[in-house]
């Protein structure tokens, strides 16, 4: 009974965190872009005169999309057409499952790792799910019986291959440094301090991989500057024939992928749930000072730190999305295959050499 409760709790926490964050991102996106551009942003939706800086706009959008007509094109493949948005959202949602949001917590005498699913190959699982998400996009593009949608789906497939190759090659360096494919182990290994004071976060041990991973990760979310599958200004993209909540699900999937990429970046490069110098029973500063804290408080701090890091990373991804102009299709392909991919291979070689020289024997 406790096992089931713990499992449901773990899954529910991750699910609600990702879903709520994904829903909120529509608001964050509108507000952040507005503030960056000296505007105010959507602020008119209100409940009994209460506006709350436009926080009700996601709600109003959801109501609008749910009450709109669900349009099926005459020559569309009805099964695939209906299924596509759900595949997209499902893959984006479950991808977060093996990202740890805290250290182990003892519940009823058991040590419970704070992540929805404990996997030895958790890292590969996240990328598998991220790549599977493109099937929804391709299904949408193919089943719409629309040339523009087909072009969008084809571009999505090409972009996803480009991005996934670069992501996969860039994280090999991280895996080599921390010696595990288990996300929990990777995050735990980042708690070690280098030279007595420097937290061994991925961004310090793998700076090149960080840049490569972030670039490829943004490409995997299919948002500007890598929005060729959508291409609002040229082909409208794979969801050109979609309306109502099915269209909303595609937008949602993009935002959820943003959350997943932010979570991945935080876990692999920014120390995950690690707070600098916070160990199991309190703070232990490099200058000798120590500060004892109860276990529950430490775990709470770690979970909060993870959330804060994810939110900050999402802020940064949004900043990039609202700053950079979009790449042309061929430019993105060139960047992926001639820029990111060879550099990540070089990173693997460099990491191997460095590990040979200074690594653990």
């Amino acid at each position, binding site marked *: 009974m406790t096992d089931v409760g713990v499992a449901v709790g773990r899954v529910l926490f991750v699910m609600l965190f990702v879903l709520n964050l994904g829903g909120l991102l529509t608001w964050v996106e509108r507000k*952040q872009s*507005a*503030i*960056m*551009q*000296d*505007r*105010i942003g959507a602020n008119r939706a209100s409940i009994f005169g209460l506006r709350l800086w436009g926080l009700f706009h996601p709600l109003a959008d959801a109501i609008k999309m749910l009450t709109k007509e669900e349009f099926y094109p005459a020559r569309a493949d009805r099964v695939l057409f209906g299924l596509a948005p759900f595949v997209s959202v499902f893959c984006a949602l479950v991808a977060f499952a093996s990202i740890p949001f805290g250290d182990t917590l003892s519940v009823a005498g058991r040590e419970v790792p704070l992540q929805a699913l404990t996997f030895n190959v958790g890292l590969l699982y996240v990328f598998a799910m991220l790549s599977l998400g493109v099937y929804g996009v391709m299904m949408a593009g193919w089943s719409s019986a629309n040339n523009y949608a087909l072009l969008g789906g084809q571009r999505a497939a090409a972009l996803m291959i480009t991005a996934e190759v670069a992501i996969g090659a860039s994280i090999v360096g991280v895996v080599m440094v921390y010696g595990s494919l288990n996300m929990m182990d990777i995050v735990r290994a980042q708690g070690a301090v280098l030279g007595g004071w420097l937290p061994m976060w991925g961004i310090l041990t793998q700076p090149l991989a960080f*840049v490569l991973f972030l670039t490829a990760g943004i490409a995997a979310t299919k948002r500007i500057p890598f929005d060729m599958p959508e291409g609002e200004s040229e082909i409208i993209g794979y969801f050109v024939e979609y309306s109502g909540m099915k269209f909303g699900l595609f937008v949602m999937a993009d935002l959820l992928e943003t959350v997943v990429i932010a979570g991945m970046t935080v876990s692999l490069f920014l120390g995950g749930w690690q707070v600098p110098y916070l160990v199991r029973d309190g703070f232990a500063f490099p200058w000798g000072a120590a500060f004892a804290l109860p276990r529950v408080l430490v775990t709470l701090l770690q979970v909060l730190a993870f959330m804060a890091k994810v939110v900050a990373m999402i802020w940064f991804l949004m*900043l*990039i999305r*609202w*700053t*950079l102009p979009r790449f042309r299709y061929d430019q993105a392909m060139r960047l992926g295959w001639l*820029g990111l991919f060879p550099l990540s291979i070089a990173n693997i070689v460099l990491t191997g050499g460095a590990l040979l020289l200074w690594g653990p024997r």
Partner: protein
Amino acid sequence: MKPVQRVYLREVASGLVLTARHFFVNMGRHLAHALGRTEARGAVTIQYPEERRPYAPRLRSLHRLVRREDGSPRCVACMMCETVCPAHCIYIVAGEHPNPDIEKVCTEFTIDLGKCVFCGYCVEACPEDAIRMDTGILEFSSYSRGGMIYTKETLLSLEPAGPDGKPRSPVPIPADRTP
């Protein structure tokens, strides 16, 4: 394209710094505004229905008919405005005035604002200064053509705008427009 430019990182970084600076500066101003420093503004937006920018005094807005001291309209139905109007949107019906010194008076003075082009010629042409376009009212939309036709009584009831350009009389809302 030089190879250095192919590596977008430098330009990307400078762009991100620029937009991030805007974000934080504006956020600070919004925060200061929320904490009571009302002169701090984080955005250039003017929130229109609640907040209006001051109109220029020369702005040509909704017409009004000027009254004499006894309250009757100044208009003497000379038809100058109706003649000069390039849009043919003014319709005047002349009548007798009880005072024999005043030759004519308008019994009907109707402006079809659906046709009006707001050129202001009627104001220029009027020898009696009986029609002005200084009410400061700009929002007079309607769901029907009939709602755009303003009669003498409506036009006489309007006040000139205040010194800040703000309208002083309420917008005459046509019957078919729910406010």
